[in-house]
Every structure is written in C-alpha cells, then in structure tokens.
C-alpha cells in the first residue's frame, strides 16, 4: 500500500515534468480562471463593505418636545429598543443637544446672541435609530408615528420624526443595494460556472492526449487506482501552482489599487488583501485544487471503462 502510494506520487511528479507543455497550458488556463474568481471575490468585498459603510450612515431621528418628561422619553426609547428590527439607538439629552448646537454655531454671532437672549434651552432631546436593514426603516417610522399620535394633545411627547424627509434617499439607496447585490451574485455564478467548464475542458484535453497510455497501462494489468492516481495528483498540482500564480499576479495589482480604492470607497483593498491573506489564500488555492482534482477525476473516468 505504502509502496503503491509512493509510486503513484512519483509517477505524478514525473508526468508533470515530462508533459511540460500540457502542464503549462493547463496551469495557464487555471491561473486565468482563478484570477477571475479572485476578481469577483474582491469586487464583492469592496461593494459589501462600502455599501455597508453607507448604510451605517443612514438613521432616523426622533425629536422630542422640550417639555416632554423623562419618563415619557425613556418609555419610548425602551419601546424602540425592544423592536426586533432596530440595531442601535443613540440618545441625546436636551443638554447635549444644546452643547452640540453651540459647538456647531460657535462662529455664528447672531445665532449665539439669539440663543443667549432666550435664556432657556429651546431644544428637545432626540434619539437616532439605526435599523438592521434599510427596508426596515419604513416599519420603524410607522411605529413612531403611532406613538406620536397616541400621546394626549395637551401633553405631546414626540415633536417630529424625520423619516419623511429622508424617505426618498433611503429608498433609493435600498434599490441600489438590492440591484448591486443581485447582479453581483448573478455575475459570480456565471463566472464560476464558466470557470468550471473551461478548467474541465482543458484538463480533459490534457488527459485525452494520454488516453493511449491509459489503455496500455490497463493492458499491462495496472489497477484503476494505479492509473488514476498520478493524473489526480497532477490535477491537484495544477490547482496548487495556478492558485499561487494567481495570488502573485494579484499582489502588485493590489499594491496599485489599495490607495485608489481607499480614496474612492473608503476601503483599502490592499489592507484587506494583506490582513485576510490566509482566508484569501485558502479560497483561491483551495478552489484551484478542487477544480483540478474534480476535472481530472471526471476526465479520466471516461478512459477507465471497458
């Protein structure tokens, strides 16, 4: 058993070297395929992160009337926090709101004078709500609207909910994200399907050139595993070498792309490439190995019948 494995391994390596042209052709095709798979992966990552960043900037604000009592505010706040769709609620008290206002308009003499003349804090507390999904803002705002209408007219709590003003922007963003996600997953599926077909055909051609050898091996009394082994090993080697090559090609491209994506998407692809290198390596090289192995196994099965 051990001897057989050793012989199969040696035959795999020897075959890889002696059929250098066939090996090179397969590796070239597989490298291109893995490069493309890498490209879809990185674009997907870029879109997910930058859209996610965009999404986290969206929120709706609830402004309370200045006279609202602490209990009323905190009960609404708790009710909102209890909603399953809500990801984050940030509370800004009346004093903090005033502080923020002062900071923002510290250069504006007239506004500051007007504020000082009032003597009292004219601002109400507010909460900022972030939903888990863009599509959930609609229902959250409906809930808030109900809360606002429930309050007694002589004792209002909520002054305004600003969803109405942001509605259009949020909906547009929602549509864009849906479209991008759907089309990028369709493109990924199509590309990966094409990649599998191309790899399979290339390796099938490589093994087709060896069909005569396979029939000779059978006549000499070699068992199927003994014939198949070296070809499977070669498939794995094609995948391994191609994966490493594809990553080597990606490296300088990433160095170049890094600062550019940083500027445009606020996401540095090069940093991602370096920090997540182990998982990227696993995906690219792993895909190569699986593709090479499966293609070899399928291609050789044809010549082992009879």
């Amino acid at each position, binding site marked *: 058993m051990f*001897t*057989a494995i050793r*012989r199969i391994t040696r035959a795999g390596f*020897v*075959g890889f070297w*002696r*059929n250098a042209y066939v090996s090179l052709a397969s590796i070239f095709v597989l490298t291109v395929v893995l490069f493309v798979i890498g490209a879809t992966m990185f674009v997907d990552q870029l879109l997910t992160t930058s859209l996610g960043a965009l999404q986290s900037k969206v929120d709706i604000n609830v402004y309370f009337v200045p006279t609202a009592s602490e209990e009323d505010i905190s009960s609404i706040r708790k009710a909102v926090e209890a909603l399953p769709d809500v990801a984050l609620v940030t509370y800004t008290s009346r004093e903090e709101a005033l502080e923020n206002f002062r900071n923002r308009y510290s250069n504006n003499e007239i506004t500051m004078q007007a504020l000082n003349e009032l003597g009292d804090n004219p601002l109400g507390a507010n909460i900022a709500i972030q939903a888990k999904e863009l599509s959930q803002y609609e229902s959250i705002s409906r809930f808030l609207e109900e809360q606002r209408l429930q309050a007694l007219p002589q004792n209002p709590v909520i002054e305004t909910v600003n969803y109405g003003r942001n509605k259009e922007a949020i909906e547009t963003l929602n549509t864009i994200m849906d479209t991008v996600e759907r089309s990028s997953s369709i493109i990924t599926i199509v590309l990966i399907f094409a990649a599998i077909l191309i790899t399979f055909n290339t390796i099938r051609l490589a093994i087709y050139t060896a069909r*005569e*050898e396979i*029939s*000779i*091996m*059978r*006549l*000499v*009394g*070699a*068992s*199927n595993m*003994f014939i198949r082994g070296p070809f499977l090993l070669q498939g794995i080697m094609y995948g391994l070498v191609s994966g490493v090559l594809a990553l080597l090609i990606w490296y300088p491209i990433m160095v170049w792309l890094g600062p550019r994506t940083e500027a445009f998407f606020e996401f540095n692809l090069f940093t991602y490439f370096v920090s997540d290198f182990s998982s990227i390596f696993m995906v690219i090289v792993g895909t190569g190995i699986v593709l090479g192995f499966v293609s070899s196994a399928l291609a050789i099965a044809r010549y082992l019948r*009879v």
Partner: protein
Amino acid sequence: MIYFDNVSKLYNDGRSAALQEVTFQVAPKEFVSIVGHSGAGKTTLLKMIIAEDRPTDGQVFFESIDIHQIPRTRLPHYRRKIGTVFQDFKLLPNKTAYENIAFAMEANGRTDDEIAENVPQALSLVDLSDKAWNYPGELSGGEKQRVAIARAIVNQPDIIVADEPTGNLDPIATYEVVQILRKINDLGTTVIMTTHNKGVIDELGRRVITMDEGRIVRDDSSGKYVL
C-alpha cells in the same frame, strides 16, 4: 491451458461475424501461430484471451476460469498473468525503456528490489541493456518491439499473447523478435502469436492454426503457411 468452447462473435448488426463457432485448446508450453487474411478473426481471438472483447456466444477458459465471468475489478489481476505484445508496440512514450518495463512490475505490486533485479535481466534477454535509458522515440522499430517483449515477460507470465509482433519490422528485426519468442517458449512460457509472415511460420516449424472468415479451417501440429 486456454480453451475456446464454441466461441462466436457477432457484430451489432447481428449478421457479420468476427468469429464463428471456434473451438480449440492450447496446452502449456506450446507455441501456437495463428495465420489468416486480414479480417479472418485473428486479432478478435487474441482480444478474447486478454478480456478486451467479449464473445456473443460460447466461453473462453484460462485454466478452469471462464475469462468473461471475471468481475471488472479483478481484471487487472487476471491480465498480469498474461504478457501482451502488439504490432504497434504500445510503449509509454514518456517513459524510458527501463521505466516501461519497470511500470509493468510496479503495477503488479512487485518490490523495489525485485524491480532492480528483474528489469536488467529482461533487458539483457532481449539484448537491449545499453538502451535502458532511451525513450521509445529514440529506438528503432525492432528495438521497441524487444522492449515490449521484455515488458511482457518481466512478470513471468503463464502465457505470452503476441498480435502480429513482426508486422512493422524489417526482415532482420523480424528474425530477432522470433528468436526471442522462441527462446522464451523454450524457457517454458506458452506463446500464442498471430502473423501474416510466411517466413516466420516456416522457420518456426511449430503448431499453426489457419483461420478464414472467422472459422478455423486448418490446425496442423507442425504446420506450414498454407493459404
């Protein structure tokens, strides 16, 4: 040792036959030549022995085993008992002469020591010790066929099946190959060979089976080429 029992092979159209009711047997240590025109069924006959083709009727026995009842997974084991030699040599082009012969032993599960010992012996038997590390592309037709014979005998098979082994060779190479086959037979291995070559048959003076249109028409114990 080999026994054909009323073997027929019909092609898919159901009318033309490669073999018709062929019955004969080969005893151990015999040297049997099968002659006949192209299409007489010689090659089909040999393919039955190495289980590359199945009869539509009748049975082929190797010792007491019905060859065509052997399950697919056991076929490699059966084939290791038979050495095969072909007109077109069928050497592995990416392996040297030595490696071609060693491959048959590796496939057979022999140890490295046995391989290191037997391959040079087989090469010297066919007088090719000096070409051990040449690839088939660097050998002449006669040399290739001698490598193929060395590969066929290296596992000490019970029987050598040779399909037109001299078909692609010039007269001198033909003579050498026939002498080697005769030497192997003298050492105790059964040989079954098909041929077109009248000179080979007359030179051998051994048993000759003559085929025509899928039937055995003559079977002479010390035959001449009669067609």
